[in-house]
């Protein structure tokens, strides 16, 4: 048994998996429902018996935007009116959806991006040492 399989079903654990480039959610041991983000309690059957499960990372674009007026943290990273970025909601092939950055698509011409676009998971590592963090992203499945 991998030591990460003992982690509690929290955001901190999700981030710990993400920093190891693994997209991990929870699976209800009672009814089999898969949850992403991970949940401690299954809303389908109320069970609190969960196990960690790795998602395949393949999915499709369900909704998106190209952000031209960014929040402070993205503006500090150099994004803005002349350098927009894409955020989206991705439906995983296992069923659940998740919010993520979108890479490898043209943020300056979002009208060319299609709902249903096949995607595969990617990971944006930023910062070093204590400040290192990983952001969930997807890019076109080639």
């Amino acid at each position, binding site marked *: 048994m991998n030591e990460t399989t003992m982690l509690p079903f929290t*955001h901190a654990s999700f981030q710990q998996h993400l920093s190891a480039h693994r997209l991990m959610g929870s699976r209800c041991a009672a009814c089999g429902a898969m949850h992403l983000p991970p949940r401690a309690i299954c809303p389908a059957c109320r069970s609190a018996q969960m196990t960690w499960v790795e998602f395949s990372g393949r999915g499709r674009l369900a909704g998106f*935007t190209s952000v031209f007026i960014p929040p402070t943290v993205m503006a500090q990273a150099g994004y803005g009116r002349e350098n927009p970025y894409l955020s989206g909601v991705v439906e995983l092939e296992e069923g659940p959806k998740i919010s993520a950055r979108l890479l490898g698509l043209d943020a300056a011409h979002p009208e060319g991006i299609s709902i249903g676009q096949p995607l595969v998971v990617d990971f944006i590592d930023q910062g070093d040492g204590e400040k290192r963090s990983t952001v969930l992203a997807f890019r076109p499945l080639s």
Partner: protein
Amino acid sequence: MPATRSLPRPVAIVAAGISKFGAFPGKSSRDLFVEAFLDMESSASKGMDARAIEALYLGNFSSELFEHQGHTAPLIAEAVGLTPIPAVRVEDACASGGVALRQGVMAVASGMYDVVLVGGAEKMTSLPTAEVTDALATAADTQYEIPAGFTFPGFYAAIATAYMHRYGMRPEHLMNVAIKNHENGALNPNAQFGVSISDWMQSRIAAAIKKGKPAPTWQNVWDFLHDDSANPMIAWPLRLFDCSPITDGAAALLLVSAERAADYTDHPIYIIGSGQASDVPLHGRSDLTTLSAARNAAQQAYQMAGVTPADIRFAEVHDCFTIAEIVATEDLGFFPPGDGYKMAEDGVTARNGAKPINVSGGLKSKGHPVGASGIAQAVEVFKQMHGLAGERQLKGDVSLALTHNVGATGSTCVVHIYERKN
């Protein structure tokens, strides 16, 4: 299907007031609430004695981030001279006002109180725009949504892309909502941007000529709205005129039991339906083109009121973004899914249409002081039902109305139905 609930006893609005909405340096949320309170007192046709008020429920999203002031409700109560009544702050993001109203309704309906003040106040313009954006973002899921780069315009933009894909709507269709709501807001003296987009365009042209610059060549509002310099992209496909503004403002309502209503007015406005629901973050939903919390809250309110969507004469809905109004008119059952944008295009939701939506100008033109917006919607219902809406007064039957107030992307929605019985 939620259980049908009923109020243990009837509750009526007998007075309603609103501050001017806009950007007011030097005015705090307390100062704005005083304006709304005085306007409310003057609206009670038989007069009112504020010493009868037994409790305050105040909608306020984030005085901590906007004004560096927590524990706001007792200070608001003090500002209008109501210490020591119980003062309760209610926070459900942009639905704080509508939820405060619902708390007030339950407090009177339960028999606990006979006379309750409900209000909303938000002071947003003291921060730079980027910090306001950051403050509003705390209403979303800061663990799983915000790290993906989403802003509030971005969330509603994602809803718009899913809607466009399913129903064939184009970004241009959204502009019909902005044009309509600014035309309505131009007739509302309390509105932040009380000017039609056409007049806005003309003033931009006049300003350019006055400064000796080349005059813009916009032939009509569509040219204007498609011009990146006049209507910049915020979060594709949403542009500046698809977004409600950052606003300072406050609003107030006096709720009383039916037995006490005649002390204040011969024409009480009864709250005959109230519903509220919550939902998961946007990415957790099976369908991005509808807000299930809105459908759930509306169903509760319709069942309590014993009315149908077709019975509603006019509605104030939560148009924080143009796409939000289109989705709202479908979630409330006014139009089938996928028809909302066509109804906006065909003028059905215009002031002289069959189903007037946001006659006040909506959040879009009137302004969106987030904690006050849900109360301001009810103030518009009161004014329309009392014939006090001036140039924007609806003609014909206004005896049954609805308000729809949303928190974040629909993690909260609260719906109320109002009736003037005589």
